[in-house]
Each structure stands twice: as C-alpha cells, then as structure tokens.
C-alpha cells in the first residue's frame, strides 16, 4: 500500500429492523398478479387454483346478497366472547401462578398437561357439557386461548425486574400497589406478545368449531364450499379469515403503541 492509503471498507450495518410498510403490500400484490396471470394464460389450470378476479367476484356476490354479514357476525361474536373469556381467565391465572408459589406448584404441571391436547378433539366433550349451541363453541375457543395466555402471562410476570419490586417494598408500598403499579405494567409487553399468538389460535379454533355443527359462520361457509369443491367460495372464506387475522394483529399493534410507548 502506498502513502495515500486505502479507504476502510464499511462492514457494519444490517441486523436491525427498519420500517418498510409497502413491501408487504408489494409481496401480496405480486403473488395475486402471478396467480391471475397464470390462470388466465392457462399456465395454472383453473382446477388447481381459482382465478383471483373470480374470488373477488364471489366475494362481491356474497356481500351484495347480504350473506356475508349473516356468516360474519355470528363468527365475530363467537370469537369475541370465546377469546375474551379465555384471555381474561388466562391472564388472571397466569398472574396467580406468577405471584404465588403454591398456585405455581399446583397449576404449572396441569397447564403443561393441557397445553398439548388438540382442543378440537375435545369438541364432543364440550358439546355434552355446554350444549350443541353457542356454549360449546365459546368453550372451545376460550379453552384454546386460555393455555397459551397462561404460559405467556406467568413468564411475563417472572420477567418483571425484581429490583423494581424490591424498590417498591423499600418504600413501603403495599402488596396490591406493587402488583398494580409495578408487576402489571412490567408484565404488559409479554402479555401482549402472548395475546398475538392466543388470538391467532382463537381464529383457528373458531373455524374448527363452526365446521362441526353451525348453520352460519365463516367456518360453515368454508366447509360447505369445500364439500362442493367450489374453490372460488372456499378462497373467499379463507381471505376473510386472513383479513381477520391481520385486523386482530393490527389491533394489538395499536394497543402496544398506546400502552408501551415508554419502550424505545
């Protein structure tokens, strides 16, 4: 090397996340365009994949016939009631496990035993316990959301900085104040992260519950379309589920931005 020297090569950067919202839309649009182009030119046979424009048309018919809301509203109600029951019970039990050694010793093995059970397998049991109507569907969704919420919540409570709790004790804060003002906000990031997973599971179980004995609901709609091999309607149903998933995730994102604005 001569006296002028050479420039030091930049080798840092990367491994960080930057906001690139539009990329998601581009990927979606590209896949849809590819499917549309493939089905129109015949590269993809219409038997293997429905044409996106046809799915959109089916969706339009579903909307204009009023059937959309006839299916969507019972589904949303089931999701709301079931997930609310499961998540609130899960957060409650998760807190008890996180705060009391006795509850932890008693319930953690039980939760571990319940977690791997495919909840759909228990649907007949729920039908006997809670009836063939809405009760068994609520119970299935609630049960499915309950276990992941419990695990996420007690892990989040365990992760609350102990020095903050010691600080609270050293200033003579009472037990309830410490739980409400230090443990609860400290556990909130973990609880919300857990809810993202729990609510996705709730949507899966919603469809499962509706496939077994429901007149109306997205699940019933998809099952009916599937048994007729009506791929356009099947896909219209699947798209509704995807949109539901994206919406739930967006709602949690909004809650996170509201409640967790103290993080970076």
């Amino acid at each position: 090397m001569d006296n002028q020297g050479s420039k030091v090569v930049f080798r840092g950067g990367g491994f960080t996340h930057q906001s690139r919202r539009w990329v998601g839309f581009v990927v979606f649009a590209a896949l849809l365009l590819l499917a549309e182009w493939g089905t129109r030119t015949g590269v993809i046979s219409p038997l293997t994949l429905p044409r996106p424009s046809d799915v959109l048309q089916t969706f339009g018919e579903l909307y204009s016939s009023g059937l959309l809301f006839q299916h969507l509203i019972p589904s949303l109600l089931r999701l709301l009631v079931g997930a609310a029951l499961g998540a609130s019970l899960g957060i409650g039990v998760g807190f008890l496990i996180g705060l009391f050694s006795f509850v932890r010793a008693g319930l953690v093995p039980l939760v571990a035993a319940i977690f791997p059970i495919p909840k759909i397998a228990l649907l007949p049991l729920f039908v006997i316990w809670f009836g063939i109507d809405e009760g068994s569907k609520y119970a299935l969704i609630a049960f499915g959301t309950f276990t992941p919420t419990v695990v996420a919540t007690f892990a989040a409570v365990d992760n609350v900085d102990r020095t903050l709790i010691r600080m609270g004790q050293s200033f003579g804060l009472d037990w309830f104040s410490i739980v409400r003002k230090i443990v609860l906000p400290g556990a909130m990031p973990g609880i919300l992260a857990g809810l993202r997973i729990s609510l996705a599971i709730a949507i899966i179980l919603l469809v499962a519950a509706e496939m077994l004995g429901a007149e109306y609901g997205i699940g019933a709609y998809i099952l009916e379309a599937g048994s007729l091999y009506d791929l356009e309607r099947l896909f219209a149903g699947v798209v509704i589920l995807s949109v539901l998933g994206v919406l739930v995730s967006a709602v949690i994102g909004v809650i996170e931005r509201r409640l967790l604005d103290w993080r970076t």
Partner: protein
Amino acid sequence: MELRLAGVGHSYAGREVLRDIDLKVPEGEIVCIVGPSGCGKSTLLRMMGGLEQPARGEVLQVGQPPQGCLNPLTFIFQDFALLPWRSVAGNVSLVLEDHPIGRDEARAMVADVLGRTRLTEFADALPRQLSGGMKQRVAIARALVVRPAVLLMDEPLSALDSQTRELLMEDLVGLWTRQPFTAVYVTHNLAEAVRLGHRIVVLSRRPGELREVVSLDKPLADRGYGDADLEVTQKHLWELMRAEAAAADAELLRG
C-alpha cells in the same frame, strides 16, 4: 434517629458472609462502608433497611424518626430502579401514593424535591430519555420526597462515568450542607468514601468483619477533588484493603 447494629452475622447456604458486626450510625452523619467485593457490604445495607433478615444479631433503630417522615429507612439503588413507564414526576409521586396525602400537597412535595435536585424542567420526561446521572438524580429526588430519617445508598454512583460521578458527589454534598441527613453509603470506590464519609467503615473479605473505622473531621463542603489530606486517608484505606482485595479476587477465580 440513629441506627445500631449489634453482633450482626449472616450466612448464605452455609457459607458465612458477615460476622459479628457492631456499628453505630449517628444522626446527621454519613457513614461509608467500604470493603472488597463479596464482603457482604450490600447485604449489610439491605439488613439495615429491612429488606433482609440477619441470621444472627439485630439491627435497631434508636429514637423517633423526625416529624413528617413517611419512610424512615429509604434506599437509593445502584441501578436507579426507576419505573420505565412513568415520567420523572410520576416516579417520584409513586412513593407518595400509598400515604394519605392530598393531591395538591403531593404535587407541591414533588415540585419541591425536583427543584432541589434541579430536575424541574424534566418532570415529564421518561427514564429512557435521561442520562445515567439524571436517572440517579431522579432516584435521589424520590428518596428525599419521603423525608427519610436514614438514607441507605447502595453504590449509588457505581453505574456512572467518572465525570458524572464527580458532579453527583457535589450534588450530594450540597444537599447535605443545606440540610444534614443521616446516611449509610456503601461503595467500593475509596475516593467517594473520603469525599462523602464522616466515618469510613472498612470490612474484611468474606466473611465480612469490621477491620477499622476511620473518622474524618474535615467538613464535607471543604473537601474537593484530589485534596492532599484526603489522599493520605485514601492511601491508608487502600493499604488496609489491598491484601484483602487481592485475596478476595483470587477466591472468586477459584470459584
């Protein structure tokens, strides 16, 4: 109010960490506790503040806490222990919320301590927006707002860089000069000890025993960075600790 320790000893899992500590913390004085790492000085402080129970001996508070005192034994922690979801003012008011204090009075008390620690204009900032030195000043404000009888400081400046440490030492001296408080100050930094301590208690390595108590008569306000007489005391302290520190270090390496 003063603190008295009588024959305090402690063990963790069969390993003795503190042995036979007799100590008096007189009112209006800052007592520094120095010692090699692992000598149990932080354990001793937690016992003084009731966060841990000594296995042997007892910790006594003698006399009544002053009027209006809300939390007689108040800690300042090394890692600040601020709630990241609360603003500066919110962190300070947290420790008033469990006391029967009216909203206006609490607000006035918070404003007063924030003024004394020169944090008024940062009242609405979140901890993540503050530097380490500012965070510790918030913790000091939070400790002062409950009008403590004894401040228990656990290496309060150890997480800070040396310039910030110097500035905060001046702050502490200023606060003490305006209104003398009683404090126990645990540190491994001998320069801090000779700047802030009226008495300096030297502990031996584990199990921590009282080696020597050094008294410094020079008023806090007259002590400065690199004073010759302080250097002499600091050197004396270092000679006391040197062999102990080396032995403690080797002990840690052996696990």
